[in-house]
């Protein structure tokens, strides 16, 4: 068993490249889905009924497709419509589409719970539209949503593991290829698990820290 781990250790560079890819994919996926979520949340809370319904349908669809199927769709099915993405872009696209819906729903939920008073004050002082949203509403929504956004981040990191099926060279893919080459399944997968755990711990520590900063701003 110790020999197995030393084999994994000799291939640690592959594992670390996988880790890097997972980190880059998750971070960029998260930021992009948060940005789209911010726009969608505004559309979900819009006065225009048509906009609300359209966005609602879109968000629900995004949240209802199993992630694995979404990755297959983007990578294998879109080319038949003439849309060709490489496996990396496909993976990122799948993450963003899948999580933007969740982010929108998180932000909308928090927004709906926000006390009316400070938004009223925004209107009373002449804020409206995007100016009101981005300067008065959104900062408060994001501050209140930090734990949920942190939770979703952990979800995203774990979801990137699915992307090995479309050959994105992320952490699980790296562990799997070490495993199949040297046949050290336990050591390879446990090492990957440890790295996933480490990433999640960092996020949780970050959330706790940001929460402390957020506390005074509520």
């Amino acid at each position: 068993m110790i020999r197995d781990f030393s084999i994994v250790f000799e291939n640690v560079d592959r594992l670390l490249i996988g880790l890097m890819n997972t980190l880059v994919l998750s971070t960029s996926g998260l930021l992009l889905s948060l940005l789209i979520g911010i726009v969608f949340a505004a559309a979900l809370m819009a006065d225009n009924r048509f906009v609300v319904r359209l966005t609602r349908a879109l968000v629900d669809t995004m949240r209802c497709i199993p992630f694995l199927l979404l990755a297959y769709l983007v990578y294998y099915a879109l080319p038949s419509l003439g849309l060709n993405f490489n496996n990396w872009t496909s993976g990122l696209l799948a993450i963003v589409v899948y999580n933007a819906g969740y982010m929108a729903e998180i932000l909308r939920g928090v927004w709906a719970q926000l006390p009316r008073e400070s938004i009223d004050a925004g209107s009373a002082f002449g804020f409206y539209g995007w100016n009101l949203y981005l300067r008065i509403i959104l900062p408060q929504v994001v501050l209140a949503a930090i734990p949920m956004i942190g939770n979703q981040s952990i979800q995203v990191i774990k979801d990137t593991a699915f992307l090995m099926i479309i050959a994105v060279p992320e952490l699980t893919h790296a562990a799997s290829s070490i495993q199949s080459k040297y046949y050290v399944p336990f050591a390879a997968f446990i090492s990957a698990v440890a790295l996933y755990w480490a990433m999640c711990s960092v996020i949780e520590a970050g959330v706790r820290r940001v929460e402390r900063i957020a506390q005074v701003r509520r």
Partner: protein
Amino acid sequence: MTDAADGDGDGPATLRVLGLTKTFGDNIVLDGVSLSVNKGKTVCLLGPSGSGKSTLLRCVNWLERPDQGAIFLGPTRVGFRNAGSRIPMTARELAQVRARMGMVFQHFNLWPHLTVLENIIEAPMHVLRRPRDKAVHTAETLLKRVGLIEKRNDFPSRLSGGQKQRVGIARALAMEPEVLLFDEPTSALDPETVGEVIAVMRTLSTEGRTMLVVTHEMQFARETADEIVFIDRGRIVEKSAPQLFFACPHTERARQFLQRYSVR
């Protein structure tokens, strides 16, 4: 417009409310309310709770849409494009009118994600598009006036109620509004901090700000107001000078109302 043009010789009306009616479902909250606040004057709205005073104030800057009636800020019809028309203002036009009125809320309604200073410069910078250094300068002057300059970098969650309300007043003043609207500014405060807020409002009144104040502070109303408007069940019951109103109210309802307060 000359002063005489407005009748009383009190200066032109900054704010005029004409026949305002507002219902929530079957409940008639305001029933044909008319009043005006002349430039530099303080008008206090008194009345039992639930009489429609706060709704009236919220209708003035269109936070609530009245069912009927008209509101004029100077020559501008609030909520509609022009005096006669039924074409509603766009969000942008409405925002521009609202920015000309400074509102002070019962529950302060400060923006919790911004520091005291940021709360005060937020609207001047991002609504009125003032340059930052100018906005900061004004904010600091105002903070000194309300005695909170040392709190400039604190967040609202760290302030007492009285301090929050003084920031609320400074925030409203920073807009250089044509009229200040106070919605029960001391009702949510501990008794010991009411005085500090009242003191600020008193100086604002004496320096000639135009103010419409919903309040339960009878002493403030008596000593500061130029006119008392007494509302009950959505209607104006009495409108008179404070000396007259407090000494000999002509209606039974106002008498009963005052009795309840003078017992204290």
